[in-house]
C-alpha cells in the first residue's frame, strides 16, 4: 500500500517534470510514416556575426548519450566531424545545416524511431540552445482479418446467403500505430461502422447487412483501414454471394395437343435461380432422362430441352417440368404441369360380322363388316376399300356403307379379296389390316377354252375341261350326248389335274361325234351349267371375212381379217399378193392370226390380194381383195378426190340406211313385247314360261349360247353401266338360290327358270308402271330399311336404279296387300333384315318393323 503510494507519487512527480520540460524547452511535433524519410528541425542559426556553432548534439530522451553529433570545435563547420550512433540511426541520419532551420534527416524511418529527440547546439559565445522534436512514426496497419458470424475467415466472397438473411462481418485490423480507423464501404459508399478497440493497437469494425433481398447479390463490401492521411490504407473487398430459388418455370407452348409418333422437342424455362436452376422432366412421376440444359448468357435463365416421342398411351399423362436450385435442396422445386393431349392417326380394325363364319361365305350370301376405330380427334370420315380401291355406297350394287359398317349384299367371287377400312382425322389416314374375304362358290366353266374339237375318225383327241371353283377341290363327271342318247364317260378315260380334267376321246363311228359335257363339283355344290365341248369331224377351215386394207404406204400395205371357223383344228393364215396383170406373186405372207403386212411393193400400184386359212385338213376358201400402195405425194391429192371419195360415201349411206331401218323394226318389236309383259303381270298371273329358247341344235348356235351363258361378265358385282341388265339378272339369280320364291317355283330354280325372269325384268326397267311411287313406299320401310335408314331418306322416292331393283326383287308388297303385280314377279328380300345391323341402325329402326310376316324366315 505504502509502496504503491510512493510509486504513484513518483510517477506524478516525473510527469510533472515532463510537463515542466515541455514548457521550458520548445518542442516540435513531427509525424512520419514508417519507411518515409523524416526531417527533425534544429535551429543552429547564430545571433551574432562573431559567434559560431561549435557542436550539435542530438539526444534521444531515453538515452544518456547523443545519437548523432556534429563536432566543429576545432575546424570549420562545413567539415565538422559527424557521428551517428550505430544502434540508432546509423547511416540513415545526415545533418542538413544549410536548411533553415537546419534539419537532421533520417531515411526510412522505423517504428522504433518514434520518440522525443533533443537537439543541443553549443555556440562559441551564445547560450546553448536546446530544442526538442517529438517524432511520431506512423506504422500503417498490416493485418486485416474479416470473419463472419461463424468466425470463418473470409477472403473474397462472403456467403452464399439467402433472401431474408442478416449477417455481420467483423473486420479486425491489427499491426498499426497509432490505432487505425476502420470503415466499411458498400459499393464504395461509406456505411456507419461501429468500431471497438482491440488489444494492442487493433480495432474491429462491424458491418451489419440485411435482411437481404435479391438485389443485394454481388454487392461489394470493402473494409478499409488506415491511421494516417499519408499512409496507404489497407483494404479487403468481399463480394456477396447469394443463392436464390427459381422464380418461374414454364413449359413453353404447353397444353397444345401433340401428335403421337412424332418427335417433339419440348422446352422448359426457369429463371431467377442462382446458381442456375437444374431442370428435370417427369412423366407421371417418372423421370425423363434425355433432357439437355442450356444457360442464357446472363446465367439467369435455364432452358431444358427434352426430345419426346409420345404415344397414344401417354394421353392424359401429366408431364411436369421441375426447376430447383441444386444448392438449396430444402426449397421445394417449382413445377409446371401439362396434361398431355395426344392425337394419333386412327387405328382401325376390320371385323367380320359376329355371326358370320369367315371360312364359309358362299357366293350370294350377305356379308357385313364393322370398322373398329380408335382415334383422337375422332374420325371425320370412314372409308372402305376393296383391294385398295375405294368402295362407294351403292345400294343398287349391294354396297351399303353406314357410319362404320360395310354391308355387302350377295357377295360374288369378284367380291372376294382384301377389305380395309380407313379412318380419317387431322393426324392422317389410318388403314386397317386387310381382311381377306374368301367367297366360296360352286364350279363354273372357265371361259376362253377350246369348245370345238375337230377330230378325225380313229384320231385320239384330248379334250380338257377347265373350271373355276372355290374351294378348288373338285371332282369331274363327263357325259357324252349325241342326237340319240346320253352316256356317262367312264373314269378310265378321264384324268384330272387341279381344276382341269382331260378326257381322252377317239371317235370310231359317226355316232361318236356329238357333245361332251363336263360337270365339276366341289363341297359348295355341283356345277350348274356344264362345260360343253363339241366333237366334230375335222375339216378345212372356213373362209376368213371382213378383210380390210390398213396402213398403206408407198411400198407396203397391211391386211386384217376376221378368222372364220377353224374346222375343228388349229388353223393358220396366208396372204398372197399378185400383180393384177401378170398374176405374178409378189408377196406371200403366212401368220398364226389373220393380220399381215406386205412389203417390197411398187408405189402407186394396185394389187390383187387373197387371204386364206388352212389347217391340217386343207385350205379354206380365199378371200380376195384389192389393195394399193400410195402414189407419190404430188399425185396423191388428185387421186383421192377423183377415185376414193365417191365410193366410200356411197357405201356409208347404204350401210346407214340398213342400220336405221333395222333399229326401227327392233324398237317396234320391243315396245310390243313390253306391253305384253305388263299386261301379264297386272293380271297376277304366275310368271309365264320363258320365251322359246331352243336348245342348241347346230354347232354354231350352240356355240353362241355357251359363250353368253358362261361369260364371266355376268356375275360382276360392280358392273359398268352398260352391263346393268346383266347385273340385275345376276342378283336375281343369286337371291333365288338362297330364299325360296313365294311363287310356285322351287328354291332350286332351273337355269331355264332363272332365265325366264329376264324378259320380265326388261319391260319393268324401261317402262315402269305409273303407280311406281306409291307402290314403293311401304317396301322401303319393310325390306329396304337398311339402306334407306342409313341415308336418312325414308320419305324420298328412291332413285331410278333403286326402283328398278325393287321391282325386280319384290318383297313385302304382296304381304301388306299393296296392289301391284310385280310383287309376285320377283323374290322377296326379307332375309336381309336378319343380318346383324350396326347399333346405330338398330336404334334408328322404325317402329312398324313388326309388320313383317312370320313366314318370312331366312334359310
Amino acid at each position, binding site marked *: 500500500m505504502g509502496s504503491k503510494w510512493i510509486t504513484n507519487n513518483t510517477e506524478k512527480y516525473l510527469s510533472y517534470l515532463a510537463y515542466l520540460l515541455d514548457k*521550458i524547452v*520548445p518542442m516540435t511535433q513531427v509525424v512520419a510514416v514508417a519507411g518515409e524519410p523524416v526531417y527533425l528541425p534544429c535551429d543552429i542559426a547564430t545571433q551574432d556575426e562573431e559567434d559560431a556553432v561549435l557542436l550539435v548534439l542530438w539526444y534521444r530522451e531515453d538515452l*544518456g*548519450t547523443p545519437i548523432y*553529433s556534429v563536432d566543429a570545435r576545432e575546424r570549420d563547420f562545413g567539415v565538422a566531424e559527424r557521428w551517428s550512433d550505430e544502434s540508432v540511426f546509423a547511416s540513415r541520419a545526415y545533418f542538413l545545416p544549410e536548411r533553415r532551420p537546419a534539419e537532421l534527416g533520417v531515411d526510412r524511418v522505423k517504428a522504433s524511431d518514434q520518440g522525443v529527440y533533443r537537439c543541443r547546439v553549443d555556440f562559441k559565445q551564445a*547560450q*546553448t540552445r536546446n530544442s526538442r522534436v517529438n517524432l511520431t512514426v506512423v506504422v500503417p496497419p498490416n493485418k486485416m482479418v474479416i470473419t463472419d458470424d461463424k468466425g470463418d475467415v473470409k477472403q473474397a466472397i462472403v456467403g452464399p446467403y439467402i433472401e431474408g438473411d442478416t449477417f455481420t462481418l467483423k473486420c479486425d485490423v491489427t499491426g498499426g500505430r497509432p490505432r487505425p480507423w476502420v470503415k466499411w464501404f458498400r459499393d464504395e459508399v461509406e456505411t456507419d461502422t461501429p468500431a471497438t478497440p482491440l488489444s494492442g493497437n487493433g480495432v474491429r469494425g462491424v458491418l451489419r447487412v440485411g435482411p437481404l433481398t435479391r438485389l443485394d447479390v454481388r454487392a461489394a463490401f470493402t473494409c478499409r483501414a488506415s491511421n494516417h492521411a499519408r499512409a496507404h490504407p489497407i483494404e479487403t473487398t468481399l463480394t456477396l454471394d447469394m443463392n436464390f430459388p427459381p422464380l418461374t418455370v414454364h413449359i413453353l407452348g404447353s397444353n397444345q395437343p401433340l401428335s403421337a409418333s412424332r418427335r417433339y422437342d419440348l422446352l422448359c424455362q426457369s429463371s431467377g435461380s442462382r446458381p442456375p436452376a437444374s431442370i428435370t422432366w417427369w412423366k407421371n412421376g417418372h423421370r425423363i432422362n434425355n433432357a439437355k440444359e442450356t444457360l442464357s448468357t446472363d446465367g439467369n435463365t435455364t432452358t431444358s430441352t427434352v426430345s419426346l416421342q409420345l404415344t397414344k398411351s401417354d394421353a392424359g399423362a401429366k408431364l411436369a417440368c421441375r426447376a430447383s436450385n441444386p444448392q438449396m435442396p430444402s426449397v421445394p422445386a417449382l413445377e409446371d404441369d401439362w396434361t398431355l393431349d395426344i392425337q394419333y392417326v386412327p387405328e382401325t380394325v376390320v371385323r367380320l360380322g359376329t355371326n358370320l363364319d369367315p371360312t364359309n361365305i358362299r357366293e350370294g350370301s350377305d356379308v357385313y363388316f364393322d370398322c373398329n376405330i380408335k382415334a383422337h380427334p375422332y374420325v371425320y370420315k370412314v372409308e372402305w376399300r376393296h383391294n385398295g380401291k375405294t368402295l362407294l355406297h351403292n345400294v343398287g350394287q349391294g354396297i351399303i356403307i353406314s357410319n362404320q359398317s360395310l354391308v355387302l349384299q350377295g357377295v360374288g367371287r369378284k367380291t372376294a379379296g382384301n377389305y380395309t377400312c380407313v379412318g380419317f382425322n387431322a393426324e392422317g389416314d389410318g388403314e386397317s389390316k386387310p381382311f381377306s374375304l374368301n367367297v366360296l362358290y360352286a364350279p363354273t366353266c372357265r371361259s376362253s377354252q377350246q369348245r370345238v374339237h375337230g377330230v378325225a375318225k380313229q384320231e385320239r383327241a384330248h379334250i380338257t375341261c377347265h373350271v373355276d371353283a372355290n374351294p378348288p377341290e373338285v371332282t369331274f363327271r363327263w357325259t357324252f350326248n349325241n342326237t340319240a342318247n346320253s352316256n356317262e364317260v367312264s373314269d378310265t378315260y378321264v384324268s384330272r389335274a387341279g381344276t382341269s380334267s382331260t378326257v381322252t376321246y377317239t371317235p370310231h363311228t359317226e355316232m361318236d361325234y356329238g357333245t361332251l359335257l363336263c360337270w365339276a363339283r366341289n363341297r359348295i355344290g355341283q356345277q350348274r351349267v356344264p362345260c360343253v365341248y363339241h366333237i366334230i369331224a375335222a375339216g378345212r377351215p372356213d373362209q376368213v371375212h371382213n378383210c380390210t386394207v390398213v396402213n398403206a404406204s408407198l411400198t407396203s400395205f397391211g391386211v386384217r381379217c376376221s378368222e372364220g371357223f377353224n374346222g375343228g383344228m388349229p388353223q393358220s393364215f396366208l396372204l398372197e399378193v399378185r400383180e393384177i396383170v401378170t398374176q405374178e406373186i409378189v408377196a406371200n405372207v403366212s401368220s398364226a392370226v389373220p393380220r399381215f403386212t406386205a412389203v417390197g411393193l411398187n408405189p402407186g400400184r394396185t394389187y390383187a390380194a387373197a387371204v386364206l386359212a388352212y389347217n391340217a385338213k386343207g385350205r379354206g376358201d380365199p378371200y380376195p381383195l384389192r389393195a394399193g400402195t400410195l402414189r407419190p405425194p404430188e399425185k396423191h391429192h388428185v387421186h383421192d378426190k377423183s377415185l376414193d371419195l365417191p365410193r366410200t360415201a356411197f357405201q356409208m349411206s347404204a350401210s346407214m340406211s340398213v342400220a336405221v331401218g333395222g333399229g326401227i323394226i327392233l324398237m317396234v318389236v320391243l315396245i310390243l313385247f313390253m306391253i305384253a309383259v305388263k299386261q301379264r303381270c297386272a293380271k297376277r298371273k304366275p310368271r309365264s314360261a320363258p320365251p322359246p329358247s331352243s336348245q342348241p341344235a347346230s354347232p354354231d348356235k350352240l356355240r353362241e349360247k355357251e359363250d353368253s351363258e358362261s361369260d364371266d361378265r355376268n356375275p360382276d358385282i360392280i358392273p359398268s353401266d352398260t352391263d346393268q341388265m346383266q347385273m340385275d339378272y345376276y342378283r336375281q339369280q343369286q337371291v333365288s338360290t338362297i330364299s325360296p320364291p313365294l311363287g310356285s317355283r322351287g328354291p332350286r330354280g332351273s337355269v331355264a327358270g332363272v332365265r325366264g325372269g329376264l324378259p320380265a325384268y326388261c319391260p319393268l326397267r324401261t317402262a315402269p308402271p305409273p303407280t311406281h311411287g306409291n307402290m314403293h313406299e311401304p317396301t322401303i320401310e319393310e325390306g329396304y330399311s337398311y339402306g334407306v335408314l342409313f341415308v336418312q331418306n325414308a320419305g324420298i322416292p328412291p332413285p331410278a336404279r333403286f326402283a328398278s331393283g325393287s321391282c325386280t326383287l319384290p318383297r313385302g308388297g304382296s304381304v301388306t296387300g299393296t296392289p301391284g303385280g310385280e310383287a309376285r314377279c320377283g323374290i322377296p328380300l326379307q332375309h336381309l333384315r336378319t343380318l346383324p345391323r350396326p347399333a346405330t341402325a338398330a336404334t334408328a329402326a322404325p317402329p312398324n318393323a313388326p309388320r313383317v310376316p312370320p313366314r318370312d324366315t331366312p334359310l
Partner: protein
Amino acid sequence: MFGRVIVVLLLLWKQEEVNSLRLVELRVPTHEREGGMALLGCQYDLEGDTLYSLKWYKESREFYRFVPKNEPPVYYFPTPGVNVDIARSSNTVVALLNLTQESAGHYRCEVSGEAPLFATVNRQKYINIHLLPRTGPHVTGLQEQYKIDDIVVANCSLPPSRPKANLKWLINDQPAAAEYVIGPWYRVSAERPDAAETILQLSFQATSAHFINGAIKLKCQATIAPLYQRETESTHYKAFPITATTDPPDVNKASFSKDYAEPAENSLATLIIPILYLILV
C-alpha cells in the same frame, strides 16, 4: 557454453554502464528567502571520461558554463534573478547572491563528456523563493478576563508574505474547534502585490471547561513551511461577577500590555499572573 557467453556479454554491458559518466548528486535548496543567497552543487563522476562541459540552466536558459578547454573555463550569462558569485563558483558549485522573486525556478545541471560519445547527464531541481513577514502574528480584540458565558472574539493577523501563511488558533494548546474559527482572509499588500496579509478570527462562548486552573490560554500560530513559524500567546483569567468591582481594570490592563511582549516574555507573564491572582483571592 552458450549461457556463459551471454553472462560475459551481460557483464561487459554492465561494465560499460558503470564506466559511463554519472551524475552523483544535485545539491540545490528547495526554498530560499528573498534577499538571501544559495549554493547550487552538482557532483558527478566522470568514470574515466574527460569533462567537456558543465552547464547550468535556469529553466531552458544557460546561465553558467564550465568548459575546461575554454579560456577561461568559466563563463556566465547575466540572467534576471540569477546573480552568480564567480569568486565562489567552480566546476561543481555555483553561488547565487541576492535572491529575488525571479530567482525561483528550475535549475539544471548538465554534464557532458568528451568526443566522440559526448555522454551527457543532467538533473534539475526547483528553488522556491519565499517572502517572509516582517513580524510575527498580531492578535487584537481580547479582554483580560472572561466570565463564564462571555463571548471571546479575537483577530490574528500576519504581515504580508509569499506564499500565503498558514494561521492557526490554539486554545489551551489545543487546536481550536473548527466552529470557533472564521477565515482566513487575505489582504494583498499595497507595496508587494505578490504578497498578502493573512487574518484569522477566533470566536466562541466561554464555558467553565475552557478555564483550566481559572484561566484560558489562547495562541495564534503562523507557519510558512519550511522556512518560518511564529506564534503569539495570551492568558485570560476567569472573572467573578461579585468581585467585579474590585480592581478588575488593572488586571485587564496588565494582561493587555502583556500581549505585546516578546514570545519569551509572554510566557513568563502567563506564569506569574495566575499566581498573583490566586494570592489576591
